[in-house]
């Protein structure tokens, strides 16, 4: 990249997980047969009027507070007018010049450096319906099917300042934003289900320049990976363009995941004039300071604060604390387990190594696995009181992960209980010594290493269930007696 610097801002749409839609009582549930979660209001039939769902306002204020915004005392809705068949009223009820929250920021950590990313605004709006074209595009199709189940599902749009300088920073910002929204529990923030959506505004400029270059807006970023790849591609495309002496055209581009390129959608000249004006069917919002204060006090501990606490109070390494607090479900799992069994580092290790390994292998969220904090805590206690060995515990853990069974039941069922009985182990020790005279001789000759082989043989004979401490002690005693 050398002499160029990228300037990136993200527009993130977050679907709020209220039970009902923003202006009517229809359910917001994902899925459902087409056009079954609809009523005259979200269908925009002639004569209907909107009534704001107060939960939407509450969630938007919470989200605004969590990303350090100031909450407006006076806010209003506006109409964004454009024709498209997924809009039932031919306008989207949104917020234009008086959004509910403004002037926030997020601190992100990229390669050990903390960067503060400004947040311009957060506003409320309604989602549109979903079109399924019978051909490639709406213009090349003879018909399109419209499903309005999603029409009127509440969204907040969070617009960042153009403070991001690389695809990596953009990804870190998005991950932090997702974690925060997940923590305050106002959205499922699942990119693959569309409850978290992201558009990127990208421009380049010579390093040191203060002026902003002409930007393009890249849409259709459906995963964290595509956000990073699309931004990387678009930055390089713009640099190549400029290097070739061409100008960047202000336009909207779409990310083609399969081809790994961005493609032009429409230029600025074709851009809509949305003719925003205040929504006359909704009265302006006057937000009481007491309510804002109440919501602020009710916010849970956010990821950054939690991370610092786990480092300071639980003695976790910074990396581990960062990973555990990066998602609310993981952090909750840690918290719950810790409350049952206060072995911070032990629990952290089991999460960092075994749990994440299994989750990644299955490409699962922790909520989809069957493991419970109770199960993990119980299993750790079984290790501590020598019921099972650490090695056996890995088997038990995997079984809990897959079946959700109680660790004691698993151990009993599979006969995995640790053998600590000296008489029982002694018999095996004697047998292994008798069967491996060469190793015994090596040991006598001073080759300390060969004891490891003998231990391995004993563990093999006991299917790994022998208590390693007892095995070591008895073996050494026996060898010394010889």
């Amino acid at each position: 990249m050398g002499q160029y610097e990228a300037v990136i801002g993200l527009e993130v749409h977050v679907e709020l997980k209220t039970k009902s839609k923003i202006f009517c009582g229809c359910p917001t549930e994902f899925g459902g047969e087409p056009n079954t979660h609809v009523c005259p209001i979200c269908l925009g039939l002639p004569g209907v009027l909107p009534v704001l769902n107060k939960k939407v306002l509450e969630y938007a204020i919470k989200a605004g507070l969590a990303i350090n915004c100031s909450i407006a005392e006076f806010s209003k809705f506006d109409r964004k007018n454009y024709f498209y068949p997924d809009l039932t009223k031919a306008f989207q009820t949104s917020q234009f010049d008086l959004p509910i929250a403004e002037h926030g920021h997020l601190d992100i950590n990229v390669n050990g450096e903390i960067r503060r990313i400004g947040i311009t605004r957060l506003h409320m709006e309604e989602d549109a319906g979903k079109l399924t074209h019978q051909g490639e595009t709406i213009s090349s199709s003879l018909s399109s099917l419209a499903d309005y189940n999603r029409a009127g599902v509440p969204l907040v749009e969070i617009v960042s300042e153009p403070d991001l300088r690389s695809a990596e920073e953009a990804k870190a910002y998005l991950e932090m934003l997702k974690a925060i929204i997940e923590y305050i529990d106002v959205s499922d923030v699942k990119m693959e289900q569309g409850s978290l959506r992201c558009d990127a505004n990208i421009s380049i400029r010579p390093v040191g320049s203060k002026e902003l270059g002409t930007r393009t807006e890249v849409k259709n970023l459906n995963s964290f990976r595509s956000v990073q790849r699309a931004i990387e591609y678009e930055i390089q495309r713009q640099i190549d363009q400029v290097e070739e002496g061409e100008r960047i055209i202000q336009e909207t581009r779409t990310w083609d995941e399969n081809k790994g390129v961005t493609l032009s959608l429409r230029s600025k000249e074709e851009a809509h004039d949305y003719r925003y004006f205040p929504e006359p069917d909704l009265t302006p919002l006057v937000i009481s300071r007491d309510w804002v204060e109440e919501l602020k006090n009710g916010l849970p501990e956010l990821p950054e604060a939690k991370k610092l606490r786990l480092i300071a109070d639980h003695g976790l390494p910074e990396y581990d604390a960062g990973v555990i607090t990066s998602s609310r479900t993981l952090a909750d799992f840690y918290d719950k387990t810790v409350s049952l069994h206060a072995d911070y580092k032990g629990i952290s290790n089991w999460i960092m190594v075994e749990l994440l390994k299994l989750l990644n292998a299955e490409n699962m969220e922790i909520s989809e696995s069957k493991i419970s904090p109770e199960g993990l805590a119980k299993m750790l206690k079984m290790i501590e009181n020598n019921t099972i060995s650490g090695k056996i515990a890995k088997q038990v853990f995997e079984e809990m992960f897959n079946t959700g069974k109680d660790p004691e039941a698993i151990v009993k069922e599979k006969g995995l209980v640790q053998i600590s009985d000296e008489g029982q182990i002694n018999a095996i020790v004697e047998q292994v010594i008798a069967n491996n005279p060469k190793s015994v001789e090596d040991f006598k000759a001073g080759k300390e290493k060969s004891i490891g082989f003998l231990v391995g043989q004993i563990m093999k004979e006991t299917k790994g269930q022998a208590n390693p401490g007892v095995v070591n002690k008895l073996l050494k005693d026996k060898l010394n007696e010889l």
Partner: protein
Amino acid sequence: MELSTIHGLRDLLANREISAEELTNQALEKIEKIDDKIKAFVTVTKDEAIQVAREIDQKRRKGESLGPLSGIPMALKDNMCTEGIKTTCSSKILYNFIPPYSAKVYEKLLGAGSILLGKTNMDEFAMGSSTENSGFFPTRNPWDLNCVPGGSSGGSAAAVASGEAVFALGSDTGGSIRQPASFCGVVGLKPTYGAVSRYGLIAYASSLDQIGPFTRDVTDCALVMNAIAGHDSFDSTSAAVDYPDYTSFLSNDIKGMRIGIPQEYFGEGIEPEVEAKIREAINKLEELGAVVEECSLPHTQYALPAYYIIAPAECSSNLARYDGVRYGLRAEDADDIISMFSRTRNQGFGIEVKRRIMLGTYALSSGYYDAYYLKALKVRNLVKQDFDLAFEKFDCLLTPTAPSVAFEFGSKADTLAMYKQDVCTIPINLAGIPALSLPYGLVNNKPVGLQLVGKAFGEGTLLRVAYTLEQNSEQTRLEPSLEGVK
């Protein structure tokens, strides 16, 4: 049973001197007999009406409790949604639209026991002052079939004036209840913005639209208001205030009441004979003990231009949903989505609707918003302030309702001349306050209307003044001969 009132019929019904079914049949027969000339109705709901009437009669026989308007046949302007009954806004674009839900006012009237005779004709999407802009056919004035009934609620006004319906509801965005009430010689009230739920009223200009009654006298106006006014949680702009019993204001006494006469509503543009009639009414009020004084509403002249920015701006957005995708007309010869939109709208909307959509689209366009829409909002505030100041001094104001009596078809072909029909009524919508049109005498055998204007939620004062005038002057009770239709 010619030209009966709600309060008169109510007693006959209660005493079982007439049944709801008989009354409904009489109304339906009358519609059958004269409506091919008047053309007040777009849809007549004969079977449904008789069905409902029978149910009410049965309830009465069983001694079950009955709503206050039980058995009274009425009509609704065709921009109020009626579940299962075609609701067209007199527009080709909604020629086949059958709503799956009902407007709040219709639910309330049904709950009060009222019987729907049908849906009345209007200027398409309530845009116009003569009902000539109906996408289907014009309505004629029962007083003179060569004249318009006024508009946009011309069908409702004509239905009540001709005795087809006992009362009717209309909607008023810039005068669409009061001006036709004036032209047809009936009582018309535009309530305070927010006093009657707009849920289910097909929007023209949301911040100005308000539903109100057409009745044959002031008492009926209060009775209908009792049935339709009130807070509605389905309408965010509905006012959560205490709503009075409107009949409690019907006292024959205005002694000491202070009435302002805004000079801007008289003189140029107002027909001298109309003004003379209004002056007669003023004298009568003074005789009856009111304190009458001239006053000024200095921003009146800016109200009309401000209205023709705000209303079209809102309409351009409100009417955008008629795109042929989900209901109503869809052009058949389209080759892609854009041409489907534009052909549907081109075929479905009439010229006045198109004119206002274009006006509004322009006024909201980027680069013009501040100069037009924002400025119009500021003017709106000034107009409102004028009224606020006046009401510090006066209990109500009195003006002509319209500059003229009913005019002949086609005589206001000039768009601006037609727009000026609403010069006396538009400022009231901008201010969101109530106003009532009361018949007061005839000019060339056509009714004149006077307009009483009150402060927000001051409908009671208007009813009291109108009732007192009605009790003391024959000029307020007008009945067309209906010679042309017999």
